[in-house]
């Protein structure tokens, strides 16, 4: 017993000594005041700032310079550290979110523990936002002094190393997800590819031909789909969804729900006898955007990968009243089993690529266009299905109302984008191109058919794009009218379109056989909820936020989770594929290390004073605090204390505020440091 007590007695002074080290020894803080060109110096009187800090107790060096983040700037900091044996560094400059890492690295190179360096934000929080020079300077002095006081109490900290699970998760099996999965798999790493629908392919599989090459969409895609399904490094889970994601970069814990197909995929050969015999034939097909029909047991399209059907429980006769079972009778392989249940899979994942794609906007919000009211007013994606050789009309353009061939089609661009009054301000990027494509496909199929396209602008900025739209106009004689359409209504079997030709300055009325609305790309339904499940940021529409719009477009706001494709913003196929490969390269970079270095801004518990109340355990969002047994020499339990798992702790500090005995504290933001920062204000 007394040995334990003795141990504790030894422990306490050590801990106290460690934390007071910087006060007991003379603090020698270096203060480096950056001008940031005119950004800071233009508003804050830096010479006054230098003078004020010079006089501050504990400050050994107080200097200013134009750009401390530059090479010579950083060299001068390192020199100052070495020449003055500085015990801490404060850089008064831009936001720590900009250059904390830069300066910490410089300190490390000069031999000073990087965690003894802090940034005083006198740009974003001071020079850029205040108009009065005097008050801005006073504030800058205040901020810098307060950070100096904090740094005096900083402890040396060392990065923590955690293992990396070398298994990637790609969420979404469209072109972006497939590309990312293939790139990672081809580099020799393990990938789990999860797709919500019964088949891979996403929206690209629904297209007829792609711009600007007019390649058959499925022809270029299906080889990729098959490759992904057969790749030894890719584990394909279709008809599955991600239920939850816990953990952090290199160490995610993911739960996947594999929805029941009611079909044994091992036994099923994809022969199709079951859906040929299924008596429920009139369900509107989601793949055909409601223009075609499917059965209750079905594959979404003929080239589905994997080619195993699923049973739509809501429409299946057996599930409704226990009768039928014609599919079971038809199946020669006994592959159908109505008792199958959803299964859950828990995986350890190192990195995640989110490629969940988009959906087409519901244009019924335009009451004046009559979508949903008039059968012959359709969306761009529905037109793709009509034009597609494997579509509901075998590639013939037919009016949904009477199956007649339309002789004059009106296309309306910007039907749902660039429209703040409907809440969609952005440009959907692909509509100008696909409308030109539709006009071309139509005129190739229907000789003598006329097209009129109402547009506001033509956005055709890719390689070969403008030439493509000019081809539609010059060779295929598409008639482009500049102006938006005000109203569409039906009269005598024709669709009357009231628009305008602003270049002529006159309203225009056209009697068309079909109207195609170039609908905007919007985020998937449930995109925001899904983002919350995974823990990434999203914007007002539900598109996922990238870490930096210009320089980090494929990283999400959460470390270890990357973005690819239209879930981040509207884009076409080349851009989606590029982003997918970019995400894959980020994942491979992550997997190239054996261990991941983690920031040591984590909590730790003073076992001597911990009373084992477990307030912290309850508080921790990451379950990072464990209950540790303290044993005496003979192995008997003395008490239980809280112990922080350095691999799991994320450094939020919620536990610290719960602790009644001030036993647990957060490195980098200790109680004393915060008090010092507050007391450092004037």
């Amino acid at each position, binding site marked *: 017993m007394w040995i334990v007590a003795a141990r504790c007695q030894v422990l306490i002074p050590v801990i106290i000594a460690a934390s007071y080290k910087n006060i007991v020894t003379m603090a020698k803080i270096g203060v480096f005041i950056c001008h940031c060109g005119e950004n800071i110096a233009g508003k804050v009187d830096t010479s006054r700032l230098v003078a004020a800090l010079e006089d501050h107790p504990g400050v050994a060096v107080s200097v200013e310079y134009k750009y401390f983040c530059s090479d010579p700037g950083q060299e001068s900091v390192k020199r100052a550290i070495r020449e003055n044996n500085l015990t801490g560094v404060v850089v008064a400059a831009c936001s720590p979110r900009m250059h904390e890492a830069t300066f910490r690295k410089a300190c490390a190179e000069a031999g000073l523990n990087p965690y003894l360096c802090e940034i005083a934000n006198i740009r974003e929080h001071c020079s850029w936002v205040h108009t009065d020079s005097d008050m801005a300077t006073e504030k800058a002095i205040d901020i810098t002094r307060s950070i100096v006081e904090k740094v005096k109490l900083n402890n040396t900290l060392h990065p923590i190393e955690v293992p990396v699970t070398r298994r990637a998760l790609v969420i979404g099996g469209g072109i972006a997800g497939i590309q990312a999965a293939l790139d990672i798999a081809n580099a020799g790493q393990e990938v789990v590819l999860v797709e919500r629908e019964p088949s891979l392919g996403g929206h690209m599989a629904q297209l007829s031909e792609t711009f600007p090459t007019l390649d058959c969409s499925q022809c270029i895609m299906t080889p990729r789909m098959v490759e992904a399904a057969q790749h030894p490094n890719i584990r394909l889970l279709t008809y599955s969804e991600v239920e939850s994601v816990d953990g952090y970069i290199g160490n995610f814990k993911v739960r996947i729900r594999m929805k029941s197909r009611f079909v044994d995929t091992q036994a099923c050969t994809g022969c199709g006898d079951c859906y040929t015999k299924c008596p429920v034939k009139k369900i509107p097909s989601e793949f055909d955007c409601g223009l075609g029909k499917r059965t209750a047991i079905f594959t979404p399209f003929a080239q589905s990968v994997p080619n195993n059907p699923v049973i739509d429980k809501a429409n299946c006769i057996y599930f409704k009243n226990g009768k039928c079972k014609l599919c079971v009778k038809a199946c020669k392989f006994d592959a159908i089993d109505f008792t199958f249940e959803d299964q859950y899979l828990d995986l350890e994942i190192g990195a995640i690529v989110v490629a969940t794609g988009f959906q087409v906007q519901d244009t019924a919000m*335009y*009451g*004046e266009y*009559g979508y949903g*009211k008039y059968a012959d007013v359709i969306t761009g994606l529905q037109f793709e299905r009509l034009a597609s050789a494997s579509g509901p009309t075998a590639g013939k353009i037919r009016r949904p109302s009477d199956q007649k061939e339309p002789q004059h089609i009106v296309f309306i661009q*910007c039907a749902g984008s*660039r*429209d*703040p*009054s*409907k*809440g969609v*301000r952005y440009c959907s990027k692909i509509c100008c191109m696909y409308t030109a494509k539709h006009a071309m496909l139509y005129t190739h199929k229907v000789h003598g058919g006329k097209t009129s396209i109402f547009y*506001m602008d033509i956005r055709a900025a890719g390689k070969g794009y403008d030439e493509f739209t000019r081809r539609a106009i010059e060779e295929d004689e598409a008639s482009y009218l*500049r*102006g*938006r*359409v*005000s*109203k569409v*209504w*039906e*009269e*005598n079997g024709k669709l009357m379109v*009231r*628009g*305008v*030709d*602003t270049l002529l*300055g*006159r*309203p*225009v009325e056209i009697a068309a056989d079909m109207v195609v609305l170039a609908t905007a790309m919007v985020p998937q339904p449930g995109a925001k909820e899904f983002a919350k499940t995974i823990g990434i940021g999203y914007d007002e529409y539900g598109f996922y936020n990238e870490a930096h719009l210009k320089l980090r477009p494929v990283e999400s706001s959460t470390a270890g989770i990357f973005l690819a494709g239209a879930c981040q913003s509207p884009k076409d196929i080349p851009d989606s594929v590029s982003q997918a490969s970019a995400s894959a390269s980020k994942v491979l970079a992550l997997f190239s290390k054996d261990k991941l270095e983690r920031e040591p801004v984590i909590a730790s518990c003073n076992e001597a004073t911990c009373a084992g109340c477990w307030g912290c355990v309850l508080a921790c969002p990451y379950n990072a605090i464990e209950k540790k047994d303290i044993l005496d020499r003979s192995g008997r339990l003395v008490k239980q204390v809280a112990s922080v798992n350095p691999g799991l702790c994320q450094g939020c500090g919620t536990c610290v505020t719960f602790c009644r005995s001030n036993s647990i504290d957060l490195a980098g933001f200790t109680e004393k440091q915060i008090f010092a920062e507050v007391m450092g204000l004037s």
Partner: protein
Amino acid sequence: MSTIDLTGKDSLRHQLEESTGNNYHCCYQCGKCTAGCPAGAFMDNPPARIMRLVQAGAIEEAMRSDSLWYCVGCQTCTARCPQNMDIAGTMDTLRSIAIEKDIVSEDRSKKLVAAFHTSFLNNVRKYGRLQELSLVNSYKLRTKTFMQDAGSGVKMIMQGKINPMHNIGGKASVKAKDQIEKIFEAALKHSHHPAPKRRPVKKEFAPRAPFSIRPGMTIGYYPGCSLSGTAMEYDVSVRKMCSLLDINLQDIKDWNCCGATSAHATNHKLAILLPARNQALADDQGFDYVLAPCAACQNRQVTTRLSLKESPELRAEIRSITGIEPTCRAEFIGVSQLLESLDPEELSKRVKKPLEKLNLACYYGCLLVRPMEAMGFDDQENPRKMESLVAALGANPVEWAFKTECCGAGLTLAQQPLVEELTHEIAKNASLNGADAFVVACPLCHANLDMRQENMRKRFGDVKPMPVYYISELVAIACGADPAEVAVGKHFVPALDMVSKL
């Protein structure tokens, strides 16, 4: 070679910005306003071009445009603008400034329309309410259009819709004429109250809070000038309908003309002050709800009430003119809203003669649903409330596409050809969709669809005769009234037969 002034710093542009709340930089010239404008094909500078002229600083050219005189004030442009700009307001303000500065179009249509507005407003200034016969006389004298509507005029006098005696006896005019005079004088002074700034933001239809009116209640009644004159059937049928529904109507004492189209097309302040007096009177006389059957009147009253609520200066001005501080407690409602507010059972239990096999096109016109934020009545592209009411009466409302497309409204006298074109489109679409008759809730829509129908049919030759019923007439008939009792016999297009067969 004209230089375009894109800096937009001149004072006329500033005046436009203040009075409409528009930031003219926001217009991206999509042309949707032109596309939807009923009169767009008639104008030299359709709406989008007017906006461009303002953007480019060529405001005098915009003022000289004949577009201002074809604009029917239906607000379709403003309703559909993706950047939430007020194009209708731009037209109104340009017109007021044009009149003020006498920089106007040389087009004949301008002369006709201006003559109409002048005659109208002079009449209101003199009597406080519109004496339709003097209006028409004055208009014809100014424009020398003596033969226009000559036949209809005689018929209306015979029916009692226009009573020459009213002018002489002064019976149907406002008593507090001095207040009206003060309003007109105050209208000449500019108000410094800028309109709230408009920005490109999402617009969603939010219906106004539901209220309930129960049989036995007393509500205020604001007939408005046309119900006392040419739209007499509407007044008769509304009163009959309310008596059958056990709702007591009490006329607002000494009500004045709301200014209708002519005030808001020429002078923004007058367009607010005239209805504001009615609001003050209604508040003072203790009404919670005031039935204003005319859609134009109701629209003016509702938008004025909103302006009054936001502006203490306006309220103070009304107080100084009338001696009453408007509390804005009284709400002006339309006939459809009144019917909607009743418990559905109250209506259905009173229906004695369901209007079976009556195929009706419910015509809302423009002002019942626009502006969407102020009226809060129904969706402005596909409203359904009148259809529900009519179906509850046993009739068969058809689905058609011109429910809210303007009939030509207040330009019925001055732009007759335009009105014929518009009503032709409306009637054609209604008929193609299976309707035999119209149901309306506005006397102006009624006049255009009914009084002008014969001429329109002669001109185009492809529409069958279609009676035009007021919703109140149909409710009254369904609840047991004799069609002749509710003045259905006074319509221009014979309408008795269709409802007598029930």
